[in-house]
């Protein structure tokens, strides 16, 4: 009897809360974050319209970037349909496409940048936060052109954030919560999308946000830290971990475990205790180990997520994506 009861019970357990947790993820986690992003991006655009000087824009830049990093782990739906993520945050950028694109735009003259329709067509490496960061932190040979470009980027970010927020509010959110979108038609598919967002964002945190600057012990790469110029590298790690923790508590409330929660708590505590805003410490043996320990703590979260959430939901990693040929 037991052999038959186990799958049946499992079926009931996983079938009922599916919709409830997806709803909670949509209405308590995803949509409020897009709303905050749209609001803060709007403030950024407004302040840039009045004052596109560095000092005037910095607070709103930080607030809007915070809001984006806090929702950038949602990689499905409107953000995917619009291909917005690479434009908002073109990083990693090992070929310095952002630097080159900015230099080219400024050399070509700033006039076309003021037209949002024309700005849509420029290199995506120059459209989002990484480009704005450069223009807010580096000396500009042509201050007027830099000013116009800052304003153009702020306007682009605000428009993108508004589009995404409206998409979620005007139907996609409710449809996704019901598993009734074109791409996600069953509770299993919506949950898999949420799970993929969680697992790929953790991998990005481990491999890119931490792995890139860490490099190797003999060859640390502090200049590869994300958003290091505005000293946001550590902040992105904290924000991202907190967002993923919150996603887990909402989307996977039925299957999350105390071990997973404590793995998140451990990683967040270590990220907060780092005291290394641009991760420059990766090149200092005395400070480097703290970043390495944090990376291991993220690995522990990844393993707990794979084992406890994927295991409970019967989600297997992408067969073709995992180990290709």
């Amino acid at each position, binding site marked *: 009897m037991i052999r038959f009861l186990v799958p049946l019970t499992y079926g009931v357990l996983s079938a009922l809360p599916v919709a409830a947790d997806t709803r909670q993820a949509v209405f308590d986690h995803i949509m409020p974050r897009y709303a905050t992003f749209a609001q803060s991006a709007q403030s950024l655009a407004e302040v840039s319209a009045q004052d596109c000087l560095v000092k005037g824009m910095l607070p709103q830049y930080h607030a809007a970037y915070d809001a984006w990093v806090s929702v950038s782990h949602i990689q499905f739906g409107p953000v995917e349909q619009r*291909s917005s993520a*690479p434009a908002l945050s073109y990083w990693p950028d090992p070929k310095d496409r952002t630097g080159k694109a900015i230099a080219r735009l400024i050399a070509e003259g700033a006039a076309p940048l003021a037209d949002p329709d024309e700005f849509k067509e420029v290199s*995506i490496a120059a459209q989002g936060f990484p480009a704005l960061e450069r223009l807010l932190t580096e000396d500009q040979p042509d201050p007027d052109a830099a000013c116009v470009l800052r304003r153009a980027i702020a306007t682009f970010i605000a428009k993108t954030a508004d589009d995404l927020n409206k998409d979620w509010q005007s139907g996609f959110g409710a449809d996704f919560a019901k598993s009734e979108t074109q*791409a996600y038609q069953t509770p299993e598919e919506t949950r898999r999308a949420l799970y993929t967002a969680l697992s790929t964002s953790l991998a990005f945190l481990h491999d890119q946000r931490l792995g890139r600057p860490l490099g190797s012990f003999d060859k640390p790469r502090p200049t590869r830290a994300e958003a290091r110029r505005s000293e946001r590298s550590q902040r992105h790690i904290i924000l991202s971990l907190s967002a993923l923790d919150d996603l887990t508590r909402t989307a996977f409330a039925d299957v999350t475990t105390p071990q997973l929660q404590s793995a998140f708590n451990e990683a967040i505590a270590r990220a907060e205790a780092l005291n290394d805003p641009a991760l420059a410490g990766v090149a200092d043996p005395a400070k480097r180990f703290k970043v390495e320990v944090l990376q291991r703590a993220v690995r522990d979260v990844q393993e707990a997520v794979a084992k406890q959430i994927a295991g409970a939901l019967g989600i297997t990693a992408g067969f073709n994506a995992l180990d290709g*040929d």
Partner: protein
Amino acid sequence: MPSRRRFLQTSLATAALPARAWADAGAPTHLSAARTPEGKHSLVGLRADGSRTFALPLPSRGHAAAVHPTRPEAVAFARRPGTYALVIDCALGRTMQHLTAPEGHHFYGHGTFSKDAKTLFTTENHIESGQGRIGVWDAAGGYVRLGDFSSGGIGPHEILRQPGREMLVVANGGIRTHPDQGRAKLNLATMQPNLTMMRPDGTALDVASLPAEQHQNSIRHIAAFDDGRVAIAFQWQGDPYAAPSIAGVYSPQEGITLLRMSDAVLQGLDGYAGSVAVLDHRHMAVTFPRGGVLQVFDTETGSTLDLRQPDICGVAIAQHGAMATDGLGNVHVLTPQGARRLAQHDLAFDNHLIRVANA
């Protein structure tokens, strides 16, 4: 998904027929290796409507298959570094013969038949030297091993025959591996992939490669246009965020040209293309399973049609457009109007979808 009952009935019905031609009832239009929910591996036949004809057990994970030009027969290969190949009667859904790579060789997972159907060619690794070899088998005489010749490079992966001609095209991926070290890549710093056009006796007629700064763009999967051009799907071995385009076309006049891919799409692909299919004289489809993207390229205008589907990988021409499969068990149909899910199976479809000739 067909019920188990219906599946059984279908198998029985086809088993009763003296099926000897592709067009017979129950014969699949496509083949794919797959993993079952129990973690076992099988070769699955699919009909045009996405339903399953047969599922044959495989000894271990499979990869691609070579389709006989006239008989309803295919040879399914082990995934590298496997050593088995199975000759399958596709109409009956039965294994007819087991082939084994010769001592000291392993298969890379792909193969093709000569136009006259007398010979089967397989991509192989000569393990000790790491040199790529093309195995030659007597397809008309019980698949006796006849010998092998150089593939023209290291790590030959997909091999095909130019349509209507006795000319082979080999994608030498450039990556050296050794079974003792699993699937570890041993020569990424010095790898030199190439595309080699050769006669069936191994005489190279043309060798195409990329500029030196793109030597880490491994040439893995290929598909032939009717006019001598070859569609290429690459796997970039450098920093994935520094990847150039990973889709291209070879032409006898111009060599290899990379197709334009937008930064927004390329950024999410991990430098990895899984499969490629030529759809007509100008369109080709490339899958990017790590990015969950399928792109149809118009080689005349450079425009693309982008479709998103997690873990999509297998793609092949079909009667009306193309068929594609993913690791979640879905079978999709692609038409100029877009994509539609045809069927869902309790299977994870593996890398390649193979179109069965004349079906």
